[in-house]
């Protein structure tokens, strides 16, 4: 990975020196084991801290609208950003929805080998006192207080990475990596498949059970690049759609509203699931939506600028069996 990291650094340096960007959003190593954290690079920062590794999980596109907006009013300025496949799809979505223009952003696309689910690894280690982490092509080697353990990368990917069809960004200014990736075996998500095979009642029960954990901190919403509304329906007072309590009915209202607002927009980056401090498996529901949109409209969001989002257009061959005559 080191060489990719230095390739990224060289490119950022060049972009700054050519004044093509004013700020770059990438990753640095975090303060917690097996974690990175977003890193806002300004022109004079030395790039020593910049990191690219299998723990670069955050979808950085979420920052673009506010960083770009801040720069507005001044001369045209570009934000540089490091984008994995899913992140680049988010950027495309934001551009399509006019939250920024293509000229605002310089995308360093990176072929994503699949991101490792920190929680999966930590759940297999009893101690939280991690002393050292190493890796080779196949494995992450973790040395902790009372021992050490190897973890096969392949078996510890985020759920959304396991089935990822779009590890290579479609839209970018420069692409880093060789276009092939290790995790790219397309199988339908087992968890989601199991869930969708269940009866309606069972699915509702699981839905309720998952959401019982929710504390309405809105981390899922705020981590999502698609959730850029200035005022979310969840907090609106004029009109007030539902209450601010943590009653299950209010929580469900919030999630149904948010999830359905993602139809034809969700790129399955998993940001909402990773952000959730209570481990609500939101992807069970969002991925169902992704599959549904794909099946009905043959649409994958964020792959190009031309194709119109399915919920904004009408095609004569759209499936419409859900439209029923009032009885």
């Amino acid at each position, binding site marked *: 990975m080191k060489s990719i990291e230095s390739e990224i650094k060289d490119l950022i340096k060049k972009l700054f020196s050519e004044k093509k960007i004013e700020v770059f959003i990438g990753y640095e190593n975090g303060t*917690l084991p097996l974690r*990175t*954290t977003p890193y806002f690079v300004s022109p004079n920062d030395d790039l020593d801290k910049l990191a690219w590794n299998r723990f670069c999980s955050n979808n950085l596109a979420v920052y673009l609208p506010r960083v770009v907006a801040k720069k507005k009013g001044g001369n045209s300025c570009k934000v540089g950003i490091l984008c994995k496949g899913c992140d680049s799809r988010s950027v495309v979505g934001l551009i399509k929805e006019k939250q920024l223009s293509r000229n605002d952003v310089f995308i360093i696309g990176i072929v994503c080998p699949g991101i490792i689910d920190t929680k999966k690894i930590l759940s297999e280690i009893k101690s939280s006192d991690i002393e050292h982490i190493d890796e080779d092509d196949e494995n992450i080697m973790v040395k902790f207080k009372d021992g050490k353990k190897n973890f096969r990368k392949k078996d510890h990917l985020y759920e959304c990475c396991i089935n990822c069809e779009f590890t290579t960004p479609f839209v970018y200014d420069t692409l880093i990596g060789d276009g092939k990736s290790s995790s790219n075996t397309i199988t339908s998500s087992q968890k989601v498949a199991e869930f969708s095979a269940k009866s309606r009642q069972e699915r509702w029960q699981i839905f309720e059970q998952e959401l019982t954990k929710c504390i309405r901190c809105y981390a899922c919403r705020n*981590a999502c690049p698609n959730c850029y509304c200035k*005022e979310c329906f969840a907090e609106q007072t004029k009109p007030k759609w539902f209450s601010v309590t943590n009653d299950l009915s209010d929580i469900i209202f919030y999630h149904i509203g948010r999830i359905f607002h993602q139809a034809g927009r969700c790129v399955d980056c998993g940001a909402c699931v990773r952000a959730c401090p209570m481990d609500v498996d939101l992807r069970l529901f969002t991925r169902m939506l992704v599959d549904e949109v794909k099946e009905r409209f043959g649409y994958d969001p964020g792959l190009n600028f031309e194709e119109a989002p399915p919920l904004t257009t009408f095609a004569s061959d759209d499936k419409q069996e859900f439209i029923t005559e009032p009885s």
Partner: protein
Amino acid sequence: MKKELENYSILNKEDFNKFFNTLLGKYNIFGPSKSDKGDKLNKINSADDLMLDYKNFKMSAKEFFFPQCETLLAFDPSTGIVKNRSEDVDAKNDIIFGIRPCDALALSFFDRVFKDGAPQDPYYTEKRHRSTIISLACLEPEPTCFCNAVGCDVDSETGADIILTQLNSRYLIKSVTEKGIEILKHLKTLIPATEDDIKEKDELMAKAKSGLKSNVEVKALKKKLDDFDASFWQTVHQKCLGCGVCTYFCPTCHCFDMTDEVCNNTGRRIRTWDSCMFPLFTLHASGHNPRPSYKERMRQRILHKFNYAQENYNEIFCVGCGRCIINCPVNLDIRKVIQEILEAK
């Protein structure tokens, strides 16, 4: 008995269930047990439900005294008749068993705001009066713990009525307050502590303290933070997503919202957790917002804890429990924020 041993006693592990069940006869006990929402305070019906090998609760103990959603009053929306919320007053008082010293210290900060500051908040104060806090000293702090940096410690007593330390095959029990002494009176399972017990405790505590790895130093922080327009505010907030995780998980954050609810012709006025990280928190009806961006909101959170609380209460409203660090979706680490502020020119 030596004076310094006066408030200590010993409970052998084999007597623990007996001790606990005696208390269960007289009190409602809330203690750590597993749930869907992670390890948290739950009502304990038998000593077997207790889980004492936890590191810390996922959610802090504040939710017991300051629930995420609490009814302040009920009313009939058609007649406008207001009732104080109906409260099933239980004859038994409560024991909060096994919270960490950091959570107990945080409660003492809640006391400053809700109980000691006029006017008293009746809902909080009532619950606080009817409960006794039995805390459990930390033997093995987490890597995210930094209590020692903010004036708390693995064996802090403030906020607790009784503090327990797990020694080898027995518990050392110390009554910190009159309330604590009262509860332990006449318990036959307790035997006097010896100087050896204290020595063992001191050794365990010294070892636990050495496990606290944070070296943030907050003494110089207040002064740095007096500069409201300091340039570091331009950058420390950058990656913040503006969600409520840090404030909801924080054992000292106490901001709330008040709203009215009407359902099936019964109304209630509720208070719910709110967060200074939310844009609507300070939004005026006119559209003006004194804290319009992430920068101002992040500054408010840091200043409230590390500056305003010192002005108003001579305390730092942070106990170093590390929950905001563990749960932040972008690993925005408050220790690092403090460090960056201290290092800023």
